[in-house]
């Protein structure tokens, strides 16, 4: 059970979460996250052998519906909030394939 958090680990997590961090961000977050994670360690004292995990507060059966075509938003409405889009209905992104 790790209770210490290194800067290398914070950088690894930030990369997984697609967040660019400055060195000063890394310093600040490492201290704060380490303190928070140390506080979480108290959960390890609780015996949870055989206890089911609760993923959702209310258990209900899956909701099913027929797969029928329904009216939807227009392409223009759908694309209106994109920061960079093409009128033909495409999101413009940086070149992915060289």
């Amino acid at each position: 059970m790790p209770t210490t958090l290194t800067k290398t680990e914070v950088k690894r997590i930030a990369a997984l979460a697609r967040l660019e961090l400055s060195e000063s961000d890394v310093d600040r977050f490492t201290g704060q996250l380490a303190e928070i994670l140390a506080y979480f360690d108290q959960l390890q004292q609780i015996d949870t052998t055989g206890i089911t995990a609760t993923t959702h507060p209310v258990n209900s059966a899956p909701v099913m519906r027929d797969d029928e075509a329904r009216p939807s938003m227009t392409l223009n409405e759908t694309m209106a909030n994109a920061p960079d889009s093409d009128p033909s209905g495409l999101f413009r992104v940086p070149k992915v394939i060289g």
Partner: protein
Amino acid sequence: MAGSSLQTITDIRSAIEHGATAVEICQHFLDRITSGNASIHAFTQVAADKALQSAQEIDRRRPHDPALPLVGVPVAVKDNICTQGIETTASSRILKGFIPPYDATAIERLTRAGAIILGKTNCDEFAMGSTTEHSVSGPTKNPWDLDRVPGGSSGGSAAAVAARLAPVALGSDTGGSIRQPAAFCGIVGLKPTYGRVSRYGLLAFASSLDQIGPFALTVTDAAILLEVIAGQDPHDATSSAEVVPEFEAALTRTLSSPTIGVPWRILEDGLDSSAMRTFSAAVNTMEAAGATIVEVSLPHAKYAVPVYYLIAPAEASSNLARYDGIRYAYRASDDAADTSLGHLYNRTRHDGFGDEVKRRIMLGTYALSAGYYDAYYLKAQQVRTLIKDDYDNAFKQVDAIAMPTTPTTAFKLGELSDDPLELYLGDVFTASANLTGLPAISLPCGRDDSNLPVGLQLVGRAFDEATLLQLGLGYEQQAPWWRNSPPAATTASPSHYTGRDFANGKG
């Protein structure tokens, strides 16, 4: 002040019955916002033109329409709830300029019931925070003391209602974000049972915990609003098929000899003494009014904070992955040094998210990452089960559980902004209701030594909001704290409404 006659839904109904128009009512609140919002910054956006247009439309249709429950009632809406054609940013830079192409189901139900959307209220970014300081547009101030926070994350909605800039408001509650600001601002805030209100159109933070709910000055108004927004929705598979009671009608019935449990043992640590005195007095009031008070034991409730701050960030890290600079709103500018797609994602999210959101995304990513999943995330979900079992056991002998909403009253702006863990600990009494899905209400129950409002929280059985509302109304009748308005409410202009006292039938 003339505005004092037009504060609640009940006042507005009476005014309309006596000849007021929806436009007049709407203009009254718009005038109050104009003079009162600058000092507290509750609204980040006022949709004045749209609101007045809707009010005109309501006035035009009213003679032909059957009576609608919210006809002409202006509503303030937290900025993480989608409003068609009105910018919705969750107080984040990353959503600057995002104009939803559709209404959230709760908004659609409000407008169908005759309500008018006044505008959007400030919140902590993506509802993550308990001070409304983590907002791209700056903090909201507490109407009781402008040097203090209004609570959060729905601080703008709470402050707007407390300052009488709106009669009612919508907020969202993931770990206390309706109840805590309601307590700090001295008003009523209700988190419905998970599944009671559709989450469609609520910008997702933690999908197994989020619920939309009402802010109001009175329990009756909260009941009216809840009745309108509740109910199953095909757009949200987690919304419940449970029948929605007529909450407003339920208030005409009183509970005969209710039993209320108090978990005294978990209150022993960390509750400040003046808040404890006020809470104890509220319990005595309920006892004097006929409730039987018993002690209940919730041995795992003290773990609510660590469990919540593992589960909520884990869900958030996944939900917020969609903000990548491609499909919505903000995108970082080009960087000649690195034109790759990955770099664009990283920089957009670096610029677009504030520190608290970044902290939680990283906490969640860490808890879900290889090697830590079992120790953190799975463990938290197992303890969540134990907390749920504690409540199930307690509800075998009581109708509701009472505790303070918060361990302290409103603190100073900036006081805790560098101490995330200390802020998280403030959710100790509220987070359990989200982890268990149970409904909970915060009621104003007095003032502490600094004249700041204190909140009394009642937690109920799943889908039994009616009992909470009945108990709440019973308490409110004994202790009508809502009638005292904060200093910021009296500095707002009473507007042209002076002299036309419709609410009391004197117009």
